[in-house]
């Protein structure tokens, strides 16, 4: 009789206490039911004063999405699709309007940005930039750490912070390996991985390219108030926070984890070798670099006139015209699901505002806790920065933007203020591995313990909130974003 071979699917036995496994396995139906119950409760409750029937239905859908987005019991994009299905079927807005909202410019801008980033990664230009920066500046432990931190931030100005973290993680891991840093107790190793994770996040809020949050917030703003941001305007609003956090982040890293090695000669040699292996930049790399540069310039100088999405898609078309990328290559790098998520969130946000539901929510929540526009901003940003520690950044924006727009209307705040007020804090998760893929990737290295992230991360979160408030209070009025007092 033939002896059977072990099954191809490797078996794992979960030896945790059974109650924990049970809780983990049963949470899904419980949460799904909870969402449904919340939806039905809001829909069938006596109609509150100041809320239209359509608004009540929109609120019920929002509550359902709130439960599902916060708990991630369904993939974020599936929850968005659910919202799209429910909006017309419950009569909040028509099907035609719903799908028109889904085809928002922000969605196509994000698509264009994803494709351009895919081209950068695929041709190896992004890795070349990273390696070159490290080779140029990273000759001592201090400069190597600082280069890594700033390089991650810099790269996240132009491409998704998650992609940057995924790209620089193997490099960081190799540096730790060649320096023979122990997995436990090495300050330098911890500093390296925190620099990688935090650098990408701080850089990720600087422009519209660091992640989907800012385009999503702008898309929701445009659908509800008709106002928008250009590429340059957004960067102008965000840069002080980025600058402050880069300084504070660096200080937090080196103070919590004082450098405990004397030389990085081995890492230097590896980086030099990597650069050597890359050879000279190929024509493809140079071409993609040129297209990216041209697109950036066009976003800055012609973003308002031609539209950010148009420029992004034009860049994409040029890349395909020049055969710099193939469609199968592209499919590996573009997160199509997130586009669905953004489309649904924008549709829901617009429906909330048009039906008056967001105004009503604002009047019974934040409006009761805050008396002045600055207090409103403080509350909104604090909620955003706390939620984003445990939730998807985009989900935080999808949840807070409709309410924030409603509040802006009640307090007479320029609605434009609300886009960065929600999107910037929503991008700053420093304390937990679950906060963002960048943190999770760094934590997965095995060099970081949870408490290595918790305490210094909390300090940085506090600094981020203060930096945001200081920027909103004193700097934004200077660039025409009046918060009012």
């Amino acid at each position: 009789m033939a002896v059977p071979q072990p099954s191809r699917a490797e078996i794992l036995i979960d030896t945790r206490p059974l109650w924990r496994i049970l809780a983990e396995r049963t949470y899904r139906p419980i949460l799904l039911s909870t969402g449904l119950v919340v939806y039905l409760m809001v829909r069938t409750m006596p109609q509150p004063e100041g809320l239209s029937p359509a608004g009540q239905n929109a609120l019920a859908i929002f509550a359902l999405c709130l439960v599902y987005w916060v708990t991630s019991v369904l993939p974020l994009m599936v929850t968005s699709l659910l919202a799209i299905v429910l909006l017309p079927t419950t009569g909040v807005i028509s099907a035609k309007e719903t799908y028109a909202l889904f085809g928002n410019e922000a969605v196509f801008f994000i698509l264009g940005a994803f494709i351009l980033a895919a081209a950068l990664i695929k041709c190896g230009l992004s890795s070349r930039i990273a390696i070159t920066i490290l080779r140029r500046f990273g000759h001592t432990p201090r400069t190597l750490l600082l280069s890594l931190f700033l390089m991650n931030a810099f790269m996240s100005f132009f491409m998704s912070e998650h992609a940057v973290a995924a790209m620089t993680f193997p490099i960081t891991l190799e540096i730790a390996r060649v320096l023979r840093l122990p997995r436990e107790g090495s300050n330098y190793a911890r500093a390296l991985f925190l620099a990688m994770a935090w650098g990408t996040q701080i850089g990720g809020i600087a422009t519209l390219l660091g992640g989907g949050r800012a385009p999503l917030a702008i898309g929701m703003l445009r659908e509800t108030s008709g106002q928008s941001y250009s590429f340059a305007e957004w960067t102008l609003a965000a840069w002080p926070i980025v600058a402050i956090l880069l300084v504070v982040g660096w200080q937090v890293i080196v103070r919590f984890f004082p450098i405990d090695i004397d030389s990085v000669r081995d890492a230097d040699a590896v980086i030099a070798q990597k650069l050597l292996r890359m050879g000279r930049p190929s024509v493809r790399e140079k071409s993609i670099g040129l297209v990216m540069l041209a697109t950036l310039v066009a976003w800055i100088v012609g973003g308002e006139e031609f539209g950010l999405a148009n420029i992004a898609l034009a860049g994409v078309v040029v890349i395909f015209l020049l055969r710099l990328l193939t469609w199968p290559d592209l499919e590996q790098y573009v997160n199509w699901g997130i586009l669905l998520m953004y489309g649904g969130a924008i549709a829901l946000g617009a429906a909330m505002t048009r039906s008056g539901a967001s105004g009503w929510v604002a009047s019974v929540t934040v409006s009761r806790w805050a008396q002045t526009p600055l207090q409103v901003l403080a509350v909104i940003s604090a909620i955003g920065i706390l939620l984003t520690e445990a939730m998807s950044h985009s989900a935080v924006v999808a949840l807070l933007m409709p309410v924030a727009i409603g509040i802006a209307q009640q307090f007479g705040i320029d609605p434009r203020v609300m886009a960065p007020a929600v999107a910037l804090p929503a991008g700053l998760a420093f304390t937990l591995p679950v906060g963002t893929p960048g943190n999770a990737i760094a934590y997965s290295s095995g060099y970081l313990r949870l408490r290595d992230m918790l305490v210094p991360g909390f300090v940085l979160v506090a600094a981020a909130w203060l930096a945001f408030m200081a920027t909103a209070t004193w700097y934004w009025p200077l660039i025409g974003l009046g918060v009012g007092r």
Partner: protein
Amino acid sequence: MRPATHPAYLKLELAERGLVLDPSVRIHSAPFRSSTGADAVARSLDLVLPQGVWVSAPVEERATAGSPFRLLVDGDRVVLVRRDPDGVETLRVEVRAVPQPRFYERHTTRGTPMWRVAAVHGSHLLINPAGACGFSLRGTPCRFCVEGAPATAERDAAAPVEEVLEVVRAAFDEGAAEFVYFNSGFFDAEDGGMGFLAPYVEAVRRHFDTLIATQVHPPRDNRWIDRTYAMGVDALSYNLEMFDEDALKRHCVGRARYIGRERYLEALARAAEVFPSGTVWTDLVVGLEPPQSTMRGIDALAAMAVVPVVSVFRTPEAVGPRASLDGAEVAPVLARLYRAVKERRINMGWMRDLSLGITPLEARHFAGDGARLAVAVQRLTRFRLGALAARSLARFRRRLRVRTVGESFDASHV
């Protein structure tokens, strides 16, 4: 109940000294069940003592000539009598003699006598599809081994899965057994024999709603322990037999040479992490190593959440005359057995109806403890509803615990 008369003590004595069959038994119309199957002359009989304690009592005349026990049939009752050396009756207790299963007389569709495929021990249907033990094939059988040592069959003669299923069906249909117990003997393989047993386990799992126990030897790779649980095995034994390393080398040459005591302990520790509490066990033979060593073994195993089951050294014919066991020496060992398992809060309910070994719960009598809760819970599993609940819980637990690597990645949301 006086110590000398409680069922666990009787079991110990009977297992060690055997009993003499009264002529009234030999003329009894229903043949009693032999522990060794229907193979030729029965060497031992399965009896159920008061409180449901199973024992396999040797009955061979040569080995039991001096036994104070006599089994007789008095009308409809089967009675066990003990007499002191002066012939004075000191004990008379009614026992239940288990009739020979009817399937022992049947043949499979391939023509194999069913008793050759499986034998009933206690409430377990013992199946050894491999036939021969690898230690025996290498000339290093355990000195006290009754089943594996004499085997000379080649593994090519392994029973086909369909034949095993046929016999299990026959045994279950007549209610001769509740559980299936696979024994593979030693395999010099990465999987320790589980790869060989896997098709049998999976087939039984697919066709019957029952609990499955396996007795194999430790695999070289712990992943096979995980796979053993995942494939549907409910209880697992890697029999160390004795804790003392020198005794192991002396009496179990194959175990010591090809696997080693440390590997047994490592594998048992891992199995105890994977399987439910109280379902990983190992036999410790009393009488072949000093009692202190057995007690150290009990403590060490219980500390790993492994259930030690004490079995009485039984000499095969080839090894020589029976060594005598001192009951006064064994009693503290059994008391320790119960206390160690209780202190470690290991579930004692799973190990039951073992006719060849003394379980921790049976050993409670030696510790002077009623263990009412554990006894009540075990009793519940004898009812149909309780047994169904036990099987359902075992399945449910497996569904919760077993994951594939892919699922694990999905769950981590990375």
